[in-house]
């Protein structure tokens, strides 16, 4: 199950709709050893495509180093599908290299009613999980939510 603050859900949906018809992408990081998504980081889609995304490699290096310094890990990796349902494609499965992450997919095509879904992708195997949207996190974490 992915437990996630409503501000972070709204931020991902806004970003996806702004970038449509291009696929949007990003991560939400949290403290190492935990499972709490706190800080949203939109990533530049270097593929600039409506059917593919890849994190800009230079930006990825910078963000991965930042996480190392701040003792954070990626908790959510999100991207949008602009022409298909919010379910992992073959490419999504092929390129899922962070087995501890929640892979969130947003469908921006109005033909698909399931807008945002979350999955674990481990050893090429996909399992959907429930998205539990909360209005508040426990006190200290509430102030750490960064959805901009």
């Amino acid at each position: 199950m992915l437990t996630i603050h409503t501000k972070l859900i709204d931020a991902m949906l806004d970003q996806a709709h702004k970038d449509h018809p291009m696929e949007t992408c990003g991560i939400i990081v949290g403290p190492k050893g935990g499972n709490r998504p706190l800080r949203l980081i939109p990533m530049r889609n270097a593929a600039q495509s409506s059917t593919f995304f890849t994190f800009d490699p230079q930006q990825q290096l910078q963000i991965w180093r930042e996480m190392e310094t701040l003792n954070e890990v990626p908790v959510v990796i999100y991207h949008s599908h602009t022409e298909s349902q919010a379910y992992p494609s073959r490419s999504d499965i092929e390129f899922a290299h962070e087995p501890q992450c929640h892979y969130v997919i947003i469908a921006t095509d109005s033909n698909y009613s399931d807008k945002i879904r979350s999955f674990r992708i481990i050893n090429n195997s996909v399992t959907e999980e429930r998205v539990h949207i909360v209005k508040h996190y426990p006190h200290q974490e509430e102030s750490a939510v960064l959805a901009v």
Partner: protein
Amino acid sequence: MQITVDIPTILRPLTNNQKRLEISAVDVREAIEQVEQQYPGVKERLVTDDQVHRFVNIYVNDDDIRFSHGLGTKLTTGDSVTILPAVAGG
């Protein structure tokens, strides 16, 4: 040249869970060979026929080797080689 190689999470099961290796190499190609010697199986995840896999990012310090000399990128003492699998999909 004494350098460090940062191993991404997905490959750490192959390197005894070590995330940073200290090795000696003159260029990125040799660095990967050195890692392979100590930890067999790493090289094939990164390189085929002397070409880095398209969705593997390798950096020397802050620089993506795609923009310098690829596997032939020279190393100097103290350099840090970072390997990051691309995050991608569609």
